[in-house]
């Protein structure tokens, strides 16, 4: 199955009450793909990522991870997954960095980072700790390792969340605006970390407002509009002028 796609999404739909947020989204990610997901606020980017790792269960469509279909069913008006085991396994291969960080408030930063490797992947604690220290070093908050999330600045929390996701060594990473709370210097640092990951062949799906990243690091740009994929292509195609007028209007503000 080594030639299976790491991630393949078919025709995903999702509504909140009567409000249809995703109206049928399909997306294939090949090994090593770095896909930038662009779109206006409220266009459903976060919801899309949350559907991929089943934090929201889609109302329709299919999700395939590493050639394996994620199964769910509808029963008595509720949607439930078929096998919790399957989901857990898949999720531990899908890293996620949340828009609102979601660090565990009762653990220090270091504990947050080693939690998954130690207790989900059951790896030796000493190894995990050493790796965690390296990761924290890399994102520049090694000195905060013993602080609790509530005592960190926004940017520090965001970097801790990135370190936590990376510590799981997932096959596919889902980033929800991983640099929103960072200053340009750190944005640079974090983007460098992500670029290195990309070069190592990690598959990534990145919701971002950083056009620089979309243009230079990613090999595909997907533009969402009102719950649909408006246009997508290589950065050259998209930024070169082949994309839809809506996308040009969207990035027009950036070019200013």
């Amino acid at each position, binding site marked *: 199955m080594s030639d299976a796609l790491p991630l393949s999404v078919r025709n995903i739909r999702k509504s909140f009450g009567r409000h249809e947020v995703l109206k049928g989204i399909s997306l294939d990610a090949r090994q090593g793909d770095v896909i930038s997901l662009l779109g206006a606020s409220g266009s459903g980017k976060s919801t899309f990522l949350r559907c991929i790792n*089943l*934090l929201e*269960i889609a109302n329709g469509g299919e999700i395939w991870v590493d050639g394996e279909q994620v199964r*769910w069913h509808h029963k008595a008006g509720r949607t*439930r*997954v078929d096998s*919790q085991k399957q*989901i857990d396994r898949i999720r531990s291969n899908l890293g996620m960095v949340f828009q609102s960080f979601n660090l565990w408030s009762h653990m220090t930063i270091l504990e947050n980072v080693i939690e998954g490797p130690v207790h989900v992947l059951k790896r030796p604690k000493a190894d995990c700790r050493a790796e965690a220290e390296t990761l924290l070093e890399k994102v520049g908050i090694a000195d905060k390792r013993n602080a609790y999330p509530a005592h960190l600045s926004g940017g520090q929390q965001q970097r801790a969340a990135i370190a936590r996701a990376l510590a799981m060594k997932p096959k596919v990473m889902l980033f929800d605006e991983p640099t929103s709370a960072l200053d340009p210097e750190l944005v640079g640092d974090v983007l460098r970390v992500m670029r290195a990951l990309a070069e190592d062949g990690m598959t990534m799906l990145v919701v971002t407002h950083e056009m620089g990243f979309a243009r230079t690091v990613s090999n595909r740009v997907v533009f969402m509009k009102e719950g649909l994929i408006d246009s997508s292509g290589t950065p050259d195609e998209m930024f070169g002028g082949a994309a839809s007028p809506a996308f040009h209007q969207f990035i027009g503000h950036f070019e200013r």
Partner: protein
Amino acid sequence: MASFELLGFGPTGWGALLIGATLMTLAVTAAALAIGAVVGTAVTAAKLSSRVPLKILGNAYTTVFRGVPELLIIYLIYFGGSSVVTAFGKMLGYDGFLGLPSFLAGSLAVGLISAAYQAEVYRGAYLAIATGEIEAALAIGMPRAGRLRRIIMPQVCRFAIPGLGNVWQLSLKDSALISVTGLAELMRTSQVAAGSTRQYFLFFIAGGCLYLLLTSFSDQVFNWFERRANRSMPTATIGKA
């Protein structure tokens, strides 16, 4: 002796007395909850105050009223209360015994106990408010009273409802201890009926069922309030996936 005859409303039935007692229990508990809300709010304010003496006072109140057996507090207020009233009457020239009515003494005692529990509930609810939201109120210069009324109180109420449901349950059961004052509430009436007819199980089960009736009624009220208060909150799912 057919048991439904004993529980019924006929000439030998205890039905009417039991219903009356149930209503009495409801009334005492409601009065106690109201007294407790007023006193409890003051105690909460003291406990959360930054002034050390007030803080100590508040903490002492909750420690004593939670730590001392309820029966003793009821005794103290029922007997101690009337000696205070009597002494006061003497001062005004009335010579003789003046008692606190059982209802008043009972609901006051249970109310003061309830206040200690309510204070803990309110304190917990206050601490559950996101600090950022209070900061946002500070940042627009909302004065203390406004903050209290507009931001803190509504959220304290929201967070306190489940805890208040518990306090209501406690007070409901504490009210059973007021039987020592001779007030014909549900527990005492069940016991009197049991002793007078020697049908112990019948009347204890009947009493238990009536308490459950009160509980289910009050649960419904609290659930309604909780649903209303949580309109603005996302429902967290702890189940699968």
